[in-house]
């Protein structure tokens, strides 16, 4: 059984069907790409998987730690608890908060103390847990060499580092499946290359399964083992990078028909 199975997933907004009958399978440890022209429904699919939208119909089945369960229609915070974390296309950091706080907030669901009395009275348990969280957060920040900036406000980081921080924050929820929505958007080729190797490293070190949306074909073709192509809300094709590169329909969708 695959880690994530998507069956006939559909989302309609009134008369517009943004995602239509999508089927998908992601195995444990895979790095899968999701591509498609603008407006193809990629982000909508992410929003369905993470519970931001409720699907019109269809199933999303997650299979981790030997447990199989349906997660469609659950609340985002429950889905996060099930082990799916995400980043956002248009960066959604907690801008006014420090880098460290951004990461610690994502650890909240695993916090080992209670609101009363620990949080109100700062009991020894609180101190122990906070120290553990800071240490864990710093270790995660080290992956992207951000720990020396832990006390800076998130909004003051340069653009590329904000994207990195989003990934770190998602990692802090200890996910099994990481969804990256255009992680390389707005980056120059050098930055993209660094990001590419870091994503590969994350996957190795944490045994992560990753699904990523990306327009930068150098990143997609380099790191993804399989690629799904979405067009007008429908799954147009899927296969290895070579297969996709030579797929006539995909080329048509991106470049238009040959005359």
């Amino acid at each position, binding site marked *: 059984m695959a880690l994530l199975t998507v069956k006939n997933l559909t989302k309609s907004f009134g008369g517009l069907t943004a995602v239509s009958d999508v089927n998908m399978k992601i195995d444990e440890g895979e790095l899968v790409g999701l591509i498609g022209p603008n407006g193809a429904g990629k982000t909508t699919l992410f929003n369905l998987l993470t519970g931001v939208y409720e699907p019109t119909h269809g199933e999303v089945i997650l299979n981790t730690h030997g447990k199989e369960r349906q997660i469609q229609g659950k609340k985002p915070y429950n889905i996060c608890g099930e082990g799916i974390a995400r980043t956002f296309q248009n960066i959604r950091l907690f801008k006014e908060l420090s880098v460290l706080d951004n990461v*610690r*907030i*994502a650890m*909240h669901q695993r916090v080992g103390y209670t609101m009363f009395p620990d*949080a109100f*009275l700062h009991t020894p348990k609180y*101190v122990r847990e906070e120290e553990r969280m800071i240490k864990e957060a710093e270790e995660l920040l080290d992956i992207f060499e951000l720990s020396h900036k832990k006390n800076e406000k998130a909004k003051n980081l340069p653009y590329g580092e904000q994207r990195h921080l989003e990934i770190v924050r998602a990692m802090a929820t200890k996910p099994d499946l990481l969804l990256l929505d255009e992680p390389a958007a707005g980056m120059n080729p050098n930055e993209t290359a660094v990001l590419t190797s870091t994503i590969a490293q994350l996957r190795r070190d944490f045994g992560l399964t990753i699904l990523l949306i990306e327009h930068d074909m150098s990143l997609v073709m380099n790191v993804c083992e399989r690629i799904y192509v979405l067009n007008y809300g429908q799954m147009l094709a899927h296969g290895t990078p070579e297969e996709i590169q030579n797929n006539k329909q995909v080329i048509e969708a991106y470049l238009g028909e040959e005359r």
Partner: protein
Amino acid sequence: MDLKQQRRRNTVITLVLALGSLVIIQALIMAKVIRSYQMVTISTICINIILAAGLNLVTGFTGQFSLGHAGFMAIGAYACAIFTLRDGSLVSFALGVIAGAVLAAICGILIGIPTLRLKGDYLAIATLGFAEIIRIFAQNLTITGGAAGLSNIPKFTNWPMLWAFTVITLLLIVAFIHSSHGRACIAIREDEIAAESMGINTTKYKVMAFAIGAFFAGIGGALYASTFYILKPTTFGFMKSIDILMVVVLGGMGSMTGTVIAAAVLAIITMLLQSFSELRMVLYAVMLVAIMLFRPQGLMGDRELGVPEFLKKRLKKAPKAE
């Protein structure tokens, strides 16, 4: 600087500030510099700090705009008044404070669950409506004395007691803000969708912040009843909510030290303007407009008043020498 050192430093500063204010004002009272007239202002400052600290948690830190704080205050005030009028002992006062706070918190939860789905202006109007409902109840129930209200409420509050309530309120709320649960609330203010995607049950924490805010409003109301010994439904109208909100906005949304400073500044301005009688409200309004023009983010913005940098460096060195 690690967490332990930081905590030790903060504890020392808090102790110095808190005990300092207690001793200085107590000395001034004993030297008869502060008489009953000034004591009214000091009591108002303490009560307003307690009320505004709770509202700041809701509005400044969790980002939920509430105009219903006077409603929660009224619940605490009437609960305490009813308890102490029946018995008149210190125990009944203690029970009244607890009952008022708990009742207000329960109402906070009941009101919060349906209304906190609303955003911005809509939430403000819904909470305003709630406060009006409480006021109308107070006006029409016999147990609350109807439109005439309750009078001759036994006075139990004095400076050390008000001081203790204020300090404990501030310590608890600040401790909460600096916990994982408090950060969850702040995350909601910053970006609700991101917070939810990071595993935070946003409805739960909004209601929680609302309940905590209401709890302390209940305490503030109880102290108000005991300090001013007269309660009228009109006291807890729309303007009372605005007064408390003003302290929060003026001090800076999301700054507890700002709230303390603003509560003190506003009460002292009001006291100094007493001699201008007719012009008083005009001058008060002009001052507010001026402050908002020059400091739109409030006196403190979202920062806290801390140790100045040069002192920090010295303190940093000191613990290492130990």
